């Protein structure tokens, strides 16, 4: 039964290697303090990943029509636009109906 023992040993080593690789990230120091200090001091809101258009450079700050500037359902100009899902529903999408005499809390 040499083959089966060898196979189980190899699978065991593979599982251990996987766990070691997966737990390696937890032990890494991502220097969060430095990054958060930078974000806080400069008031940054977005990642500098896609710099080809303003709505890909600052997706969280883009105006709501920016991806469809030419006409509704227009094809996306930039490849990274395909990675960006529709803007999430936020405060700006809420509809609130107020009585003119009502006072806000």
């Amino acid at each position, binding site marked *: 039964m040499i083959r089966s023992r060898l196979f189980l040993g190899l699978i065991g080593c593979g599982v251990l290697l996987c766990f070691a690789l997966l737990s390696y990230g937890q032990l890494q120091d991502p220097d969060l303090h430095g990054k958060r200090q930078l974000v806080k001091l400069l008031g940054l809101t977005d*990642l500098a*990943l896609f*710099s080809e258009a303003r709505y890909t*450079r600052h997706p969280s*700050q883009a105006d709501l029509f920016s991806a469809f500037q030419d006409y509704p359902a227009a094809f996306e100009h930039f490849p990274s636009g395909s*990675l960006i899902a529709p803007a999430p529903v936020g405060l700006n999408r809420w509809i609130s109906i107020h009585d003119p005499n009502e006072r806000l809390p």
Partner: protein
Amino acid sequence: MTRQLKILEHTLASLLRRKAKNLSLLVVYAFTIATLGSVLFLTHALKTEASDSLAAAPELVVQRLAAGRNELIPVAYAERIRALPGVEKVTPRVWGYYYDALVKANFTLMGTAGEAEQIELLEGHLPSNPDECAVGSGVAAIFGAEIGDRLVLIDSHEQNRLYKISGLFSTASSLLTNDLILLPETTLREFFAIDEQRATDLAVEIYNQREVKTLAKKIRFHLPDTRPITRSEILHTYTTIFNWRSGMMLAVTLAALIAFCILAWDKATGISSEEKREIGILKALGWETADVLAIKFWEGLAISLTAFLLGIVAAWLHVFVLGAPALVPILKGWSVIFPDFPLTARVDLLQLLTLAFLTIVPYLACTLIPAWKTAVTDPEQVMRN
């Protein structure tokens, strides 16, 4: 235990008899898992990076909208927002975009009020004089500039402006600062011709986190032409962007997964006459259906588990050691400058288990079902056919 080991021994011998078929299946299987794993690892690492770093983003950013587009916001709005109970601080931010025709790249120009605090991830210092600037590593790389060099930018009056580089953001921060050029706020106002009464947007700090939504509603009520964006919306945007289900990368890999499924189904269900005869002989020799199924189970598990482990290790090395060279071109899009960012090797265990479940279990099922069909048929009939 010994019985199972013997069955496994028999299975491995049987797999080795059909080396070429099984090896090709293993390679395709591992490659598919490596592709899917790479997408998962990369998007999760980026999502974690965004949520960790942007946790310190302004609690509320207030923009002004006019005719559905972003407009400069009057600085006077800051005073009105500051007067709302619960607001700690309102900082007008001045920033914008700059296209450099020479290098054909877009940069983000941002004004700084000359913060006294030294930034850890900045080599040198923040611009303190009107003719100084601090730049991200992408900007420095594209111009081949270093600290002390001069950067030439063309302002909104088409005048050449020279700025001395006083600080350089480290590569560790390039996911945040790669295309950033930091200038003193007054200098940037002159550069973009923005008067003192206006700003790009307002960053609002709030004492109590639980009041953010209420304050955002109050701002909308008092200043109806504004659009408040909360920090949770910023973080949610990034979660959505890098969501596993969204994006072209997964669509591309889904096609690969479907192609693999067809291949695996064909290989696993298309049980050959040789295999059928083998099952028939085993049954004729007195093997139970359960024993035959155990062989097929071990066969499926041996291939799928080996492929899964190989695929996951390959994906990890591809993303966290090599920097995902196969996926970066898709991410990069048409960006002229793209950050060379080191990713923290964070992996979502739940996603990994889902991937394992979605790849190992179907393969096991499509190995077992045809074998079971053959095993329950009369051995004589199986051997005759």
